[in-house]
């Protein structure tokens, strides 16, 4: 169950995992009804992706 060795994730995998886990937590804490939760989880997840990728592109001109 608990990994015995170090985990290696790509940037994108870490990003998706982080966004997914936090979205689920926000959905369960922020909404009561299952339908509302699913919608909120999806909405939060999409916003995480859009804002994260947007910030990444905004930093691109200064990366070198």
């Amino acid at each position: 169950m608990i990994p015995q060795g170090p985990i290696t994730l790509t940037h994108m995998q870490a990003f998706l995992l982080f966004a997914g886990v936090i979205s689920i937590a926000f959905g369960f804490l922020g909404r009561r009804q299952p339908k509302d939760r699913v919608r909120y989880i999806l909405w939060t997840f999409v916003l995480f992706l859009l804002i994260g990728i947007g910030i990444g592109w905004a930093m691109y001109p200064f990366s070198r």
Partner: protein
Amino acid sequence: MPDENNEIMQAQESEPPAAIAEGPPATASANEGGSEAKAWGVAIAGWLIPGLGHALQRMWGRALAVFLCVGVLVVVGASMRGNLFTSNGNDAFDTLGYVADLGSGSFYFLGRAVERNGADVSHAGGDYGTRFLATAGVLNLLAALHAYEAARGRKA
């Protein structure tokens, strides 16, 4: 889902009835004192073991979600060799990191157990792991605050 119905019923039941609010001051004060102490107990339980604060209020869905989310963040963060800060930090950022890491309660020690080889932030993975661990702590503090508010009868 039955557990979701329980949560709704629990929230409805936990709202103070008008009779208590309009009762004699001594009784209301005693009730408030007991409720406040219970709410603090719930919050501390939720901090020590992620999800326990909600489980004590029969909010099973939220309890499981908090337990799993905080657990996944701690295990993955520690497995990525993120930095678990200790109390003897060198600067204010280390202290802040320690406070954030401590937010995950008993899972802080789970992270230390998983991270047998120590932190390695020389790679991006280790740096991400540090953020995962801090996020787990802050998320658990948020969940404990949520459980506290629910125990006080506020809509949560």
